[in-house]
């Protein structure tokens, strides 16, 4: 006879991917029932929810520190390519070629063909200048930062899995006007808080977000060098947020790298 407790356990186990459940579900249910508990404890509930979330996010495997950082950097590069492609389409006149190169670059990153992806982003950066003969630099530094972030993965491997593709949504932090970076912008703060909280599931989200947000520092530096005054709060924001993300991600990555 199926008890209420058994049904509660079975419901929680349904959070795991079907394949994992087929392999482990019965066995886990057996262990949960063997404890003789009369009700579902918060500790068991939390561990099952977290375990299921990690399985679904493709974050359950142990990775050494280097792999975590290289994958995160490649993910950050892919996010910057989404931003670059989106920005290229938003401008007038629309720049379809860089946008298409950005999309191609993203696919190449997830296929693990990093040198080709680097080629795409470098051409995407240079194309507007080459096509209209401008002899100045472009402000689309996201392409260049993406190229730099892909170098470690190109040299030592670090292809992110397709299951981490949901992190491309991070580009909304830079593209969506309702999330315009600001010290007090609620949407922006909520998004970053969610990413920080998601570190308990997959630390690569925080590291990728931190690396992606260094685009702000890049813009500030170039602006300063160009003689454009930037307000101090903005400079602090663009330094503090990436630093917080990277610190949180690094701490968790270090712990998870242990057996």
């Amino acid at each position, binding site marked *: 006879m199926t008890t209420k407790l058994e049904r509660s356990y079975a419901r929680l186990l349904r959070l795991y991917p079907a394949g994992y459940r087929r392999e*482990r579900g019965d*066995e886990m249910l*057996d*262990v949960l029932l063997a404890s003789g508990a009369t009700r579902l404890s918060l*500790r*068991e509930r939390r561990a099952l929810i*977290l375990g299921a979330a990690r399985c679904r996010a493709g974050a359950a495997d*142990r990775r050494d520190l280097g792999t975590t950082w290289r994958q995160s950097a490649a993910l950050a590069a892919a996010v910057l390519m989404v931003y670059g492609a989106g920005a290229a389409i938003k401008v007038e006149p629309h720049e379809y070629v860089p946008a298409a190169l950005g999309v191609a670059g993203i696919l190449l990153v997830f296929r693990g063909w990093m040198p080709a992806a680097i080629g795409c982003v470098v051409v995407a950066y240079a194309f507007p200048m080459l096509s209209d003969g401008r002899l100045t630099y472009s402000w689309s530094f996201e392409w260049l930062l993406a190229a730099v972030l892909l170098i470690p993965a190109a040299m030592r491997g670090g292809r992110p899995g397709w299951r981490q593709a949901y992190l491309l949504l991070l580009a909304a932090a830079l593209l969506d006007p309702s999330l315009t970076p600001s010290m007090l912008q609620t949407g922006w703060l909520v998004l970053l808080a969610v990413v920080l909280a998601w570190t308990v599931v997959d630390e690569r989200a925080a590291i990728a977000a931190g690396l992606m947000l260094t685009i702000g520092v890049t813009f500030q530096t170039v602006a300063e060098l160009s003689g454009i005054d930037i307000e101090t709060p903005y400079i602090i924001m663009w330094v503090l947020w990436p630093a917080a993300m990277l610190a949180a991600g690094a701490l968790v990555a270090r712990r998870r790298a242990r*057996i």
Partner: protein
Amino acid sequence: MTQRMREPTYFLLTALLDEPLHGYAIISRAAELSGGRVRLATGTLYAALDRLTDEGLVEVVRTEIVNGRARRYYALTADGSTALRAEAETMAEAARLVIDRGAHLRSPGLAGGAA
């Protein structure tokens, strides 16, 4: 000194030193060996077992069907034994630094006593 192994992993592997065990027996044995300090939740146990199996430190040695459900027994592999021993030796060396020196010291209450 960097400890490479998390405490739950250490006690999980130690639980398998004597004989292969199934999931619930691993939880019980790890809790017993750690004096109740390590209480593995089921979700945590299976995440660890998956990781350790992938690392080649633990393997499934047999499966029984109990109450219509699969019950797998896990055992340490040779690599698992080596990793566990290495971790234990590292911890023992670190402990010796204090314990050996402690033999020559008085208790803190007496160390600064009247001269």
